[in-house]
């Protein structure tokens, strides 16, 4: 955009830097000079001193200095600040002029060169006549200088040169052109900077000194001017703190000026400039709150200073610019590291700038179009002789005029007219949109989505005013959904109304209908008459006619639009539109539901579609159709009503497709699901409702899924919360809120009419062939074909169970690993109605635990649904939990021949192995046989025949067996030796003949085997008789390889007399045995303790007779003395 009169001048907005002019550099032909200049210019980062350099020719003419006024007594100022002043001090009048000159100290023609240099300096001095500008000389030398004081010629010649040029020693510099150019340049720069600061300081003092000559009455303007200049010089001097102070004073002085209509603009302009400077410096000093406070003060002071009422738009333009430039300053400060917050960011200022720009537009519309008959004044009052103004903010046709009344009312009128005409050429919308989009960018950054949307609406509306409808629609469309999801209906309606106008003016049929659908719907807050008007327009469009124009549209635009619509009408084709409405809130609502979440395949699927309209008038649709995920069903769910387009509005009660506002209409559909879809879902993918006719225009309103739009879910929620009583409805009517969407249904197989029963006797016993009988009886009316049985372990259980379960149909063989856990698809063939089939199954469970068994019977049957023959596949599942338990427990123990418990056995001494079989089965068990398989380390004493063969055990009963065994000598008996295996063969008593016998193998425990040195056993009869001799023979056997000395004694007993050796000492040779014979003579009847035998081994002191006693009998039963049959006693009895 080209700069307008409202833009701030660039010299105001830049950062003032000391101006230093460089002369004597030949940039074009001299590479060295070029390098020097580049070193000055390149890399001017923040750490370099702030100087703006300029290369000027040696004889450059600087602006002439006017003769300084000595008295202000008769001086009347013509304005506040001259337009050229800032630029003059930034770019035209240098603080320092540097003369570059190539001269080495050992120059041969020193004299000539010296005078040439002096001449150059003189030329510069002359053109700076009257100014305080400093002059410095830089000698460009080829040699590196010696340290100061060492080069005598140098110091001598330097002094001479200074003298010749009339320079102080401080203004003469040497620049050796060597490797370290940049370093030298930086040192030079710093020296220049000092000179420049001195210059600006003197200038500042000079302006300050004027103050004493001024008086308050005539020189008010000068107070401002001087204060501004002081501040500006301070800035040039980089003394920003003081500059800020001076600017603040200047700002207060501006507002002290006598303001009237003729100088209002000048004052505002100046105030704006100074305010800009203050805010800028505040941001620079990192005191943003000061900047904001200053700006607020500025706005409050200036808000009401409108000036001429006929040029009110100028004030708005100026205000807009104030906000905009503050926003720019703020934004710039943020880029330099300032942090802004949500409630205080540049966006607000851009927004306000946009607001004033809108105001400007409004005022311009009011003020600039009142009289179109008057021509632009001639001569142009806005033309000035110089082409620009002398003072900021003055009127071109009366520059320098400072009194209250305009000098020439006629001229004034012409000037105002010219300004008004000029304003008409301004592209206001463009300005507004640019500001709004700036604001949008800011609010986006500071997390204000709603503010952003609001501004985008404004942008859209501005585009609409600017007649850029495409862009307007794009923006409005973009934000519409935000307002829709937040449910701000008033705002949505307002946006939709604008959008509708845009689409009307562009002749966009589809958009026009889309917006209309929503505007006549329930979310719209339009009045009923407006809705009615829009509805009629929609119907017109559907009948291929032009709609009536929207109200409040520009008349010329309406004309253009009408012709667009006429063209559109005559255009054939592209008259079908599909509008997807689930993200809108259209005037017609839809809910579709399957009656049940699942349907059996032999029952027709039922579907209801409910429709309700919210528009003011009844409306007739031409077609309703439902689409499913399986498109084959689509054909069954269509309602069509051919209607003549002329009767579209006539309400007819019986018209099926004519919807009365706010009345719920129900459509019922029914179809038979395909048998292939059993187990699948039928889903409603879309509902389409056709508006209009296929020969006119037609609009397909499309709901994705089973209806519902942007607002319906919330409405449904509210309805469920509501306590309101439902209105009483007649039988055919439905309350809309009670209908809920059911978008899918499952097709499930027909209910089987078959009975499946399982007979078995739980629990199962480990490893047995468990017998189950499955009986299947058909209750169908027709033949059940292709009957199949799947039986076995239900899949999905523990993997261990699967590995230890085997199922077979053949019960006569034991099954093994090769059998599966589940027998699939056992074909049974056909079942006539009522026929019953039984099937036996055998299951072998290797481990205990609970198993779930599945019996699955499937078959096919022919049925008729809705006069349609279908083959239905049915199946029935039965599951049964079966516990497996161990059939019996076997306990094994070792006992001595006296049935005493043994924890170890002795070599070659017989002992007993006892097995106890305790039945745990609830069913009687038949023990078919048992077998003891001895390990090599064991030997049987006699026959090992089974003692439990064919024994039947009831629950809780036990059976025992007893085997007499001995243990031959073994090498390492102490660790225990294997005893062997015990095998039991058994079956259920109830099981059938051919069921195999189960063999259960029990591993016998290990036993510790020990050797003993002496073995004693006694030969004695099983009983004695009182007073009858009882011979007892003790065998004492030496089992060691040594000769044993045995001491033996028999303790007397009260119950016996005895004969034999009472105490004896004898010697037994290795491996031999000694027999000791005693004759016991019992004295008492009953169980009597035998006289105890005590044996001591002299060679084995630890050997006790206690151990031996285990082998010897301790008691014997003594029968009473036999008596002859006594008659007397019998008689007595």
């Amino acid at each position, binding site marked *: 955009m080209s700069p307008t009169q409202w833009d701030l001048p660039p010299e105001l907005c830049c950062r003032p830097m000391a101006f230093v002019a460089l002369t004597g550099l030949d940039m074009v032909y001299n590479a060295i000079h070029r390098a020097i200049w580049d070193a000055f210019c390149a890399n001017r980062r923040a750490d370099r001193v702030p100087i703006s350099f300029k290369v000027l020719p040696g004889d450059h003419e600087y602006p002439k200095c006017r003769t300084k006024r000595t008295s202000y007594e008769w001086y009347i100022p013509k304005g506040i600040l001259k337009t050229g002043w800032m630029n003059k001090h930034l770019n035209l009048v240098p603080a320092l002029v540097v003369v570059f000159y190539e001269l080495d100290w050992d120059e041969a023609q020193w004299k000539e060169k010296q005078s040439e240099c002096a001449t150059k300096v003189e030329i510069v001095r002359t053109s700076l006549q009257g100014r305080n500008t400093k002059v410095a000389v830089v000698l460009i030398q080829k040699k590196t200088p010696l340290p100061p004081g060492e080069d005598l010629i140098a110091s001598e010649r330097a002094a001479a040169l200074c003298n010749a040029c009339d320079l102080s020693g401080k203004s003469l510099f040497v620049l050796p052109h060597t490797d370290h150019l940049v370093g030298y340049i930086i040192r030079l720069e710093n020296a220049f900077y000092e000179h420049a600061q001195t210059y600006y300081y003197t200038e500042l003092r000079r302006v300050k000194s004027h103050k004493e000559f001024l008086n308050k009455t005539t020189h008010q303007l000068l107070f401002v001017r001087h204060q501004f200049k002081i501040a500006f010089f301070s800035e040039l001097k980089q003394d920003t703190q003081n500059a800020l102070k001076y600017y603040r004073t200047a700002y207060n002085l501006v507002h002290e000026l006598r303001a009237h209509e003729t100088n209002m603009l000048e004052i505002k302009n100046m105030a704006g400039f100074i305010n800009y400077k203050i805010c800028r410096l505040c941001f620079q000093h990192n005191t943003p709150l000061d900047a904001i406070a200053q700006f607020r003060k500025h706005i409050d002071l200036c808000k009401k200073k409108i000036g001429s009422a006929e040029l009110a738009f100028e004030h708005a333009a100026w205000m807009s610019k104030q906000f905009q430039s503050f926003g720019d300053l703020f934004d710039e400060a943020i880029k330099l590291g300032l942090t802004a917050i*949500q*409630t205080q960011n540049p966006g*607000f200022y851009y927004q*306000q700038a946009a*607001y004033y720009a809108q105001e400007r537009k409004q005022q311009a519309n009011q003020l600039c179009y009142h009289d179109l008959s008057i021509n632009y004044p001639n001569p142009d009052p806005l033309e000035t002789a110089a082409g620009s103004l002398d003072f900021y903010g003055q009127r071109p046709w009366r520059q320098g005029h400072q009194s209250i009344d305009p000098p020439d009312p006629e001229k004034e009128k012409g000037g105002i007219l010219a300004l008004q005409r000029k304003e008409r050429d301004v592209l206001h919308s463009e300005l507004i949109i640019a500001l709004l989009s700036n604001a949008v960018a800011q609010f986006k950054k500071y*997390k*204000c*989505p*709603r*503010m952003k949307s*609001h501004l985008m*609406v404004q942008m859209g509306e501005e585009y609409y005013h600017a007649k850029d409808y495409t862009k307007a629609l794009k923006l409005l469309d973009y934000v519409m959904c935000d307002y829709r999801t*937040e*449910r*701000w209906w*008033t*705002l949505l309606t*307002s946006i939709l109304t604008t959008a509708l106008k845009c689409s009307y003016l562009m002749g966009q049929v589809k958009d026009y209908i889309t917006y209309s659908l929503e505007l006549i719907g329930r979310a719209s807050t339009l009045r009923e008459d407006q809705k009615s008007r829009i509805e009629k327009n929609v119907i017109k469009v559907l009948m291929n006619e032009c709609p009536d124009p929207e109200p409040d549209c520009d008349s010329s635009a309406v004309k253009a639009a009408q012709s667009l619509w006429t063209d559109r009408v005559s255009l054939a084709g592209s008259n079908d539109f599909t509008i997807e409405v689930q993200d809108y809130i259209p005037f017609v609502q839809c809910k579709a539901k399957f009656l049940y979440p699942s349907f059996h395949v032999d029952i027709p699927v039922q579907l209801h579609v409910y429709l309700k309209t919210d528009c003011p008038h009844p409306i007739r649709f031409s077609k309703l159709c439902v689409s499913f995920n399986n498109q084959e069903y689509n054909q069954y769910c269509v309602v069509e009503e051919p209607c003549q387009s002329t009767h579209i509005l006539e309400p007819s009660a019986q018209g099926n497709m004519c919807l009365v506002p706010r009345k719920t209409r129900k459509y019922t559909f029914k179809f038979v699901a395909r048998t292939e879809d059993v187990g699948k879902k039928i889903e409603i993918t879309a509902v389409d409702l056709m508006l209009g006719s296929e020969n006119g225009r037609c609009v397909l309103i499309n709901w994705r899924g089973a209806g519902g739009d942007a607002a319906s879910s*919330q409405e449904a*929620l*509210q309805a469920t*919360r*509501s*306590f*309101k009583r439902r209105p009483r409805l007649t039988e055919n009517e439905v309350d809309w809120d009670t209908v809920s969407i059911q978008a899918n249904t499952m097709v499930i197989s027909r209910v089987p009419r078959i009975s499946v029963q399982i007979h078995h006797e739980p629990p199962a016993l480990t490893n047995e062939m468990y017998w189950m009988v499955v009986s299947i009886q058909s209750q169908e009316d027709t033949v059940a074909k292709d009957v199949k049985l799947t039986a076995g372990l239900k899949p999905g259980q523990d993997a261990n169970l699967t590995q230890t379960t085997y199922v077979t149909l053949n019960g006569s063989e034991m099954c093994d690993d090769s059998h599966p856990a589940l027998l699939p698809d056992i074909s049974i063939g056909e079942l006539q109605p009522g026929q019953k089939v039984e099937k036996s199954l055998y299951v072998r469970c290797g481990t205990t635990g609970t198993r779930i068994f599945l019996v699955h019977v499937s078959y096919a049957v022919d049925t008729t649904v809705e006069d349609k023959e279908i083959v239905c596949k049915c199946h029935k599942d039965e599951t049964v939990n079966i516990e497996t338990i161990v059939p019996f427990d076997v306990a094994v123990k070792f006992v001595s021949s006296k049935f005493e418990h043994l924890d170890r056995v002795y070599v070659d001494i017989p002992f007993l192995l006892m097995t106890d079989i305790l039945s745990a089965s609830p069913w009687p068990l038949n023990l078919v046989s048992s077998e003891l398989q001895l390990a090599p380390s064991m030997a049987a004493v006699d026959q090992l025949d089974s003692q439990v063969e064919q024994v039947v055990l009831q629950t809780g009963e036990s059976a025992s067996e007893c085997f007499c065994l001995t243990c031959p000598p073994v090498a390492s008996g102490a660790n225990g030796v294997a005893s062997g295996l015990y095998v039991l063969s058994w079956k259920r008593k109830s099981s059938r003949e051919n069921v195999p016998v189960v063999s259960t193998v029990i591993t016998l425990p290990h036993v510790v085997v020990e050797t003993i040195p002496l073995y004693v056993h006694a030969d004695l009869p099983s009983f004695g008789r009182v007073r009858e001799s009882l011979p007892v023979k003790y065998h004492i056997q030496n089992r060691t390889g040594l000769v044993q000395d045995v001491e033996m004694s028999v303790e007397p007993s009260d119950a016996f007399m005895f004969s034999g050796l009472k105490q004896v000492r004898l010697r037994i040779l290795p491996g031999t045995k000694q027999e000791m014979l005693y004759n016991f003579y019992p004295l008492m009847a009953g169980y009597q303790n035998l006289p105890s035998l005590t044996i001591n081994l002299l060679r084995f002191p630890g050997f006790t007779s206690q151990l031996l006693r285990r082998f010897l009998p301790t008691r014997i039963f003594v029968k009473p003395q036999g008596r002859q049959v006594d008659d007397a006693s019998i008689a007595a009895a």
Partner: protein
Amino acid sequence: MAVCIAVIAKENYPLYIRSIPTENELKFHYTVHTSLDVVEEKISAVGKALVDQRELYLGLLYPTEDYKVYGYVTNSKVKFVIVVDSSNTALRDNEIRSMFRKLHNSYTDVMCNPFYNPGDPIQSKAFDNMVSAMMVQVC
């Protein structure tokens, strides 16, 4: 006194908006709607702090050139927004607080009505009168 008073549901849709009829109603709707940006930000900032000791009054949301917008949020996240004229300097923070308190009390009464369905637009006469009283007082 106030130029616009609004009650906003937890889900940020309006339950009640009244503005002085002389002005452009739509403008106030936008003002209230945009102020929700600040309300949401403030709620989320407070949410991180102690929830129990939360101050319901949110203070000045943001100043526009002509209006000041104040916010208040109940424990159930229903928001009240009051817009006052910038030029009305008589209204101090305390007055605004008491206005909000009154509004909250009146809103509680509305909620206590067994026939009012929470989430529906407020159509209570008592509430209306209270709001009118607040809007008229000074104007």
